[in-house]
């Protein structure tokens, strides 16, 4: 939509008096792919932070339990899954106590699922901002991910508690956790950007997201170990980027041997594809948001 001239913009902001000879902001119609302007997103990082801060602040003002919800959600899921799959079904769990096994999978999953769900609806929910003020639209879905990351950190404390309870020390590969978080966030952002942009045009997306997330949950080895899946299906399983994240989490923290091994590289590549295509799609559709909302 616009191509701000960086150096000049900074210059004008500093001197504040003489207008520059070249335009600070050029507005031209665009067709096809728009430039990414990542540095502009960087300039608006404070807004990103403020939007995330608003979400958290408002959430805790309106709820009784506040921060506890970040823990209750995955813990509740863990209890339900432990009862049904751990006790009733007697699911194998690679030699790890089932509650710990499932929680280690649910933790990154929750980060992913919450990020996707929130960012998919973020543009529609912030319609009043999009139609009244200019800023890189990317900031809005991105801010929802910041919020999910905070919840993830809180819920992570429970995992530490569980590991302590079962007397399992973190495996040697703990260093890989940030990378895996990055992969989960990258995938969530890619999917979220796709859904958020499509949601502006087709409001059906809002109803599709819960199904999508629920289906995806069971396609990811969270309640079951990937070792249960027949070998022939492993490649298909690795196509799911979240498989890599969940398997990686258990490997890095609990020391399980990743069943899929090299195939996980594939899931990293898929993450990249999803993320890049999501950003491109978002940028392409971005300029029509205000007209469609």
């Amino acid at each position, binding site marked *: 939509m616009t191509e701000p001239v960086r150096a000049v913009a900074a210059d004008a902001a500093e001197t504040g008096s003489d*207008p520059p000879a070249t*335009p600070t902001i050029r507005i*031209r*119609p665009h067709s096809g792919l728009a430039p990414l302007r990542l540095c502009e997103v960087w300039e608006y990082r404070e807004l990103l932070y403020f939007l995330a801060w608003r979400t958290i602040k408002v959430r805790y003002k309106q709820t009784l339990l506040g921060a506890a919800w970040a823990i209750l959600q995955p813990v509740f899921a863990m209890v339900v899954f432990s009862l049904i799959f751990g006790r009733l079904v007697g699911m194998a769990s690679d030699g790890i106590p089932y509650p710990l096994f499932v929680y280690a999978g649910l933790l990154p999953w929750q980060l992913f699922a919450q990020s996707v769900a929130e960012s998919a609806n973020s543009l529609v929910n912030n319609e009043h901002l999009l139609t009244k*003020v200019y800023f890189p639209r990317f900031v809005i879905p991105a801010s929802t991910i910041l919020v999910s990351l905070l919840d993830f950190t809180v819920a992570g404390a429970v995992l530490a508690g569980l590991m302590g309870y079962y007397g399992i020390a973190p495996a040697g590969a703990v260093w890989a956790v940030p990378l895996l978080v990055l992969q989960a966030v990258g995938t969530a952002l890619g999917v979220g950007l796709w859904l958020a942009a499509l949601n502006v045009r087709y409001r059906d997306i809002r109803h599709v997201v819960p199904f999508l997330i629920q289906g995806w949950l069971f396609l990811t080895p969270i309640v079951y170990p990937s070792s249960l899946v027949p070998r022939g299906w492993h490649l298909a399983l690795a196509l799911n980027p979240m498989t890599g994240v969940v398997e990686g989490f258990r490997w890095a923290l609990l020391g399980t041997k990743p069943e899929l091994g090299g195939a996980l590289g594939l899931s990293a590549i898929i993450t990249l594809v999803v993320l890049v295509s999501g950003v491109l799609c978002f940028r392409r559709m971005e300029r029509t948001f*205000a007209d469609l909302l």
Partner: protein
Amino acid sequence: MSDIAVRVAGLGKRYRLGSRSVGGTAYEAIAAAVRAPLRCFSRTPPPEYIWALKNVTFELRRGEVLGIIGRNGAGKSTLLKVLSRITEPTEGAVDLYGRVSSLLEVGTGFHPELTGRENIFLNGAILGMRRGEIAKKFDEIVAFSEVERFLDTPVKHYSSGMYLRLAFAVAAHLESEIVIADEVLAVGDAAFQKKCLGKVGEVAKAGRTAVLVSHNMGLMHALAQRCLYLRRGEVAAHGEPREVIEQYLSETINPQDANRPTLEGYRRGPSADSPVAITGVWCGEQSRGVQRVAMGAPIAMGVALRVLKELHGANLTITLKNAQGERVVVLFSWDREFSLFLPPGDHVITVRIENLVLAPGRYFADVGVNRSTRSTAYDVIVDFPVFRVDNEGHVIHWLERPWGAVHCPTVTWQTTP
């Protein structure tokens, strides 16, 4: 180094009409995609487009204030949206030289659950201020908004006046070289409105460039160095505010103009169960449109009412305003012990105003029917153009004098020794 602040060239914005462009469901999109290869056989009609802006060109020098006027739907808001990068133009180019802040509404992003203090920071960030900048101006903002005592109260508990004052205060302290503002000026009560206008005047005097949209011609007159009159998306006039406003007013008033608005565009009511509707407002004879009145001559006004349910003593008010929006005459029929007791049907009420000598110019009427001054009116017509006062020999010297006062009575001059 040029001193141009805003350059707009051949700007056009096209919207597509019809349901497909706005929203549409995924099913429709899929269905359309399936049908696409067959489309050449089915001869679907080409999509209809509407140009909200067409070929808009202007330049604004540094420090100039441009007022944009035009009727509702003339493209004023679209132009502001394009200038503030909310929506992309279909054609043409805009160059902005300097930091831009756009205020299409006050209080964008305000959250009712957050306190005044928190909302100042949030709103500031949304409007593009840095955190340090907001912190630096925080005290100034609070002082301007006059809500010090409630800073730590969630804004959902604010009165609407306090809310608007706080919102305007944040917006008013934006630092930018170019300001783009829609009719957000002048909010709150009269005292605060004055403060707001003062702030806007300050912006203009401080050498900042501004693009303003307002329906308040008096304000435009006072603030703008230049005016742009938009008519159906195109520039109808551009230049001196006085001339452009004159043209705009004459076009909206002129009965020959096909665009002449009917009473409907001016109606603020009636409510669904209202017992009466105003069906006509005129000066002189009905159906003659805007009348010319000689300065000092009596003014006869007529109001047609369609009564649906019998009226038991309603009040008819007529307020006359000049082109600057200033009230000149406020008439209450009750003041003359004249209450409306009317059976269902069509009725015409007339009033004759004597001894009123108005300055030359255009006059507009607010007409309302109500049952008490406190309750909501049954029906209200606002700013309806009714007559034009011409100086026909009443004033004979220096005809282009700055009129200032609106009342020019006939007086007797005398010298005593």
